[in-house]
């Protein structure tokens, strides 16, 4: 793990370290010198300057104190980023261990440097900074990227598991540790019950999402995924609420004064805090969604609105001592759906990326701080406490997992298997949350704070490294996948085909659970909420919005890099091909296998694969675009050639009916009369050469036609090997003629986009004519047309 990772970024890192060392040496000198003059005054710089007024003005001077805090924080973040670059350069590493491992190592490194140079680390972490600035971005990111539909489908199980699980873990660990503390031999008798309970609550805050990336490829099934995600989401909130309640208890005079009434009050407070927080979050979510409805003209402030309102929900909840974490989570979940429809595409991307950036900066800082405090003098090592903490963490997690899931399985339609439960148990990796809470324990109430911090650190290190690294192999082992066997090309192709098939059939079957409740909510949503919260004239179809995102620039790029040009489509090559069996060498086979594995389309995953540290939407979007473009082309080809169904049925008049507009479509779209000649069907004859995509520069139509005709000529030859029984009218003239008529057809692809980019009048008629033809013939979905007409109407 060490060497290959260190090598890529070592030059920069050593440089940085040297710089840091130099600065820290310089600053420690400066510290000693300025200590004698002005002590930590904000204007120490100016004081020094004024005292030098009688001396010569120095040309070069070093003033480190002034910039120390931001300087060092920036260096830390940069260091962590460089480490991440190195981590991902060696592409096998992310699959081996979670990224938290990396951050901890970097933190330990920085801690070692600071310790080694005897430098005072900047006060990055104290209670207010953590709770006000570092924690909200992390929680916001978790809430925003949560897939809502599976969450709400499994919400019963998730609440049951996350809520009760956290409580069971906290109280279980606390009580067991208290019992251990009673044993005089360990020297822990001064740790009373409340302190143990508090420790239990903070150590039970897990961060299982950190390990999700490790077993991502193992195709964890959706409910399991949601369990892990939901637990991570709610766990932080619950631990913090518990922590605060228990701190409030600890602040009360003496332990013996606590009566059952207080305990009941505590429970009631727990519920109120939770529910109140969620309530606040939902309100703020709706407000921000409503405001984004009106931001068309200043889309630059859209991300600002989103972030500020989420943050405001957090602060507002915290004002009333409600749970800010749950508030910000609820806000993110509520506003996401409506905001994503309202904001522009660039704002949407900005929001996503900025959220990731903020949360990863926060987490990096926390981990580095953790590393810094690891290597220091403030530890208290107590073998018994630490070992028993580790043991009890595992035991209680196992108990809570198996007991709670046993109960919830009785009520689920698709119960969780033992394998799933084992995965959930093993993914109980602690993270930055526990450390922060431990670090922020008030020393006055916790005289043995150092021991708690040490124990927390040990648990975190253990779970992150050992569990994090071994969970990958464990999941793969449980999955019993034959990944080691070398599959023949045949098998690989067929396997991928079957995966696609299965995904497609699953889509046909649709989502099944709790459809009644969901339907009711959807109706309510459509009737009231959407009208208030989203802008008008939104194309409802996801296909159209996907095309909107296919920007002209990207299309031009695609052509320029030669990806989609099929003039290299060697048709004569195909016709001449002899069916001779060529003996292929193993290297050829290997290279073929490589080509296949790298280039075959990924099966669409039903849950968005969530990676805490990275956003990887590009591949699937590109893939989806390619598939859609290809599909459009094949539909177009099938129309043009007058194909009917591939099973030999001749094109009959029956099919013409399907060319007319689908039933009950309210908008009459101007149909080109030539369209009726085409007796096509919408079956995609993907047998035809399908990768043909001509970019249409926005110049004259004549150029387009000539461009179109040339490749069209090659089609009859290409069409010959198709053995289908349809009546083939393959006269070249007809094809050329069809080509000429065809010339305008692909234009709508861009004109749909054009309308977005330039509201030029000159494209209007062509757009509507082309658009009508396009929509009349291609008809991939009814929504297309409903949404297409608003596009046309807007003109």
């Amino acid at each position, binding site marked *: 793990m060490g060497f290959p990772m260190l090598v890529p970024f070592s030059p920069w890192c050593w440089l940085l370290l040297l710089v840091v060392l130099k600065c820290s040496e310089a600053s420690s000198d400066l510290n000693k010198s300025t200590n004698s003059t002005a002590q930590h005054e904000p204007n120490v710089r100016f004081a020094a300057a004024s005292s030098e007024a009688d001396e010569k003005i120095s040309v070069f001077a070093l003033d480190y104190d002034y910039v120390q805090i931001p300087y060092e924080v920036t260096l830390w973040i940069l260091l962590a980023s460089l480490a991440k670059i190195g981590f991902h350069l060696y592409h096998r590493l992310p699959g081996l261990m979670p990224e938290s491992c990396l951050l901890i190592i970097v933190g330990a490194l920085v801690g070692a440097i600071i310790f080694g140079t005897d430098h005072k680390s900047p006060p990055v972490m104290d209670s207010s900074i953590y709770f006000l600035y570092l924690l909200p971005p992390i929680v916001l990111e978790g809430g925003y990227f949560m897939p809502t539909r599976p969450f709400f489908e499994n919400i019963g199980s998730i609440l049951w598991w996350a809520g009760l699980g956290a409580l069971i873990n906290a109280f279980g660990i606390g009580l067991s540790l208290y019992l251990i503390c009673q044993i005089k031999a360990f020297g822990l008798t001064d740790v009373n019950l409340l302190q143990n309970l508090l420790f239990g609550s903070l150590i039970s805050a897990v961060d299982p999402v950190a390990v999700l990336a490790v077993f991502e490829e193992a195709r964890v099934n959706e409910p399991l995924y949601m369990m892990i995600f939901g637990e991570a989401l709610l766990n932080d909130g619950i631990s913090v609420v518990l922590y605060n309640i228990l701190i409030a208890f600890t602040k009360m005079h003496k332990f013996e004064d606590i009566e059952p009434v207080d305990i009941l009050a505590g429970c009631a407070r727990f519920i109120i805090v939770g529910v109140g927080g969620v309530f606040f979050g939902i309100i703020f979510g709706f407000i921000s969604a409503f405001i984004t409805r009106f931001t068309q003209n200043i889309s630059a402030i859209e991300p600002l609105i989103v972030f500020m309102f989420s943050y405001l929900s957090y602060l507002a909840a915290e004002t009333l001592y409600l749970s800010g974490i749950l508030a910000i989570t609820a806000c993110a979940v509520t506003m996401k759906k409506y905001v994503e429809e309202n904001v522009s595409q660039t704002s949407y991307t900005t929001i996503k990326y900025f959220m990731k950036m903020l949360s990863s900066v926060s987490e990096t800082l926390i981990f580095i701080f953790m590393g810094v405090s690891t290597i220091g003098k403030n530890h208290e090592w107590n073998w018994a406490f630490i070992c028993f903490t580790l043991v009890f963490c595992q035991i209680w997690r196992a108990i809570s997992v198996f007991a709670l899931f046993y109960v919830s399985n009785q009520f689920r339609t698709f119960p969780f298997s033992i394998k799933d439960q084992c995965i959930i148990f093993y993914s109980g990796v602690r993270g930055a949350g526990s450390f922060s809470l431990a670090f922020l324990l008030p020393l006055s109430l916790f005289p043995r704070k150092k021991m708690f911090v040490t124990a927390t650190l040990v648990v975190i290190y253990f779970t992150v490294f050992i569990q994090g690294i071994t969970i990958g192999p464990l999941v793969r082992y449980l999955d019993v996948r034959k990944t080691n066997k070398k599959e023949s090309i045949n098998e690989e192709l067929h396997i991928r085909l079957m995966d696609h098939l299965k995904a497609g059939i699953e889509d046909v079957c649709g989502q099944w659970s709790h459809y009644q409740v969901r339907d009711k909510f959807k109706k309510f949503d459509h009737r009231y909420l959407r009208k208030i919260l989203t802008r008008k004239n939104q194309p409802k179809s996801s296909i159209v919005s996907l095309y909107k995102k296919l920007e002209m620039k990207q299309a031009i790029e695609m052509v320029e890099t030669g990806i989609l040009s099929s003039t290299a489509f060697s048709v004569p090559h195909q016709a001449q091909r002899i069916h001779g069996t*060529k003996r292929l060498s193993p290297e050829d086979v290997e290279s073929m296998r490589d080509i296949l594995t790298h*280039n075959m389309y990924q099966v669409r995953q039903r849950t968005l694969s969530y990676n805490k540290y990275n956003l990887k939407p590009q591949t699937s979007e590109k893939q989806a675009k390619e598939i859609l473009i290809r*599909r459009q082309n*094949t539909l177009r080809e099938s129309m043009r050639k007058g194909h009917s169904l591939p099973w030999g049925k001749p094109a009959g008049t029956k099919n013409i009916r399907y060319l007319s507009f689908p039933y009950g479509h309210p908008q009459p779209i101007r149909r080109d009369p030539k369209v009726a000649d085409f007796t096509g069907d919408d079956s995609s004859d993907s*047998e035809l050469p399908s990768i043909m995509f001509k970019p249409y520069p926005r110049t004259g139509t004549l150029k387009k036609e000539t461009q179109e005709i040339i490749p069209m000529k090659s089609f009859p030859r290409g069409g010959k*090997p198709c053995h289908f029984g349809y009546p083939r009218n393959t006269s070249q003239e007809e094809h050329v003629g069809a080509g000429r008529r065809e010339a305008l057809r692909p234009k709508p692809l861009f004109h749909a986009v054009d309308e977005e980019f330039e509201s030029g009048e000159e494209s209007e008629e062509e757009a509507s004519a082309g658009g009508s033809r396009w929509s009349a013939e291609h008809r991939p979905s*009814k929504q297309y047309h409903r949404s297409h007409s608003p596009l046309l109407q807007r003109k």
Partner: protein
Amino acid sequence: MWLSSKKQTKKPPNVQPETSLLRLYHRFRALDRNKKGYLSRVDLQQIGALAVNPLGERIIDSFFPDGNLRVDFPGFVRVLAHFRPVDDDDSGMRDPKQPEPLNSRMNKLRFVFQLYDLDRDGKISRHEMLQVLRLMVGVQVTEEQLESITDRTVQEADEDGDGAVSFLEFTKSLEKMDIEQKMSIRILK
């Protein structure tokens, strides 16, 4: 109830447990936008997720066998019945005189075979294999690479040297694969 009103049947669909059949019916009704009582291609094409599936059109075509333009509920169920998980205790008690259940391994493989073999001649020709490959592969792969991969694929599976893959050869090439598990959808149980 639904089973009686069909004309073009070969064998009755499997008896499915009540709840999943009911859910399939609700799904059928939800897909059937105009309450026609049957589904047409357009209805299935409106499933957005299918549009970005590389095999989307072929999957839709498989619901309309023999060139039909409509599929009613029994037909819908019949196709989906291929994807039911195989119950181990079913196979033991099966009466050999009855037709094989739709979710047997053989029938699942036949379903997959029909995705390749569009002209229904019982063989996957080289050309048909090429078409499928082209559908499933990104645009960066050149034509020559695709052709050589196709050649290799057909070559691996073809045993009698006719340059095409028959159904038996197809099943043979997949004999090591756990088809039952791969082509099973849990919710259809």
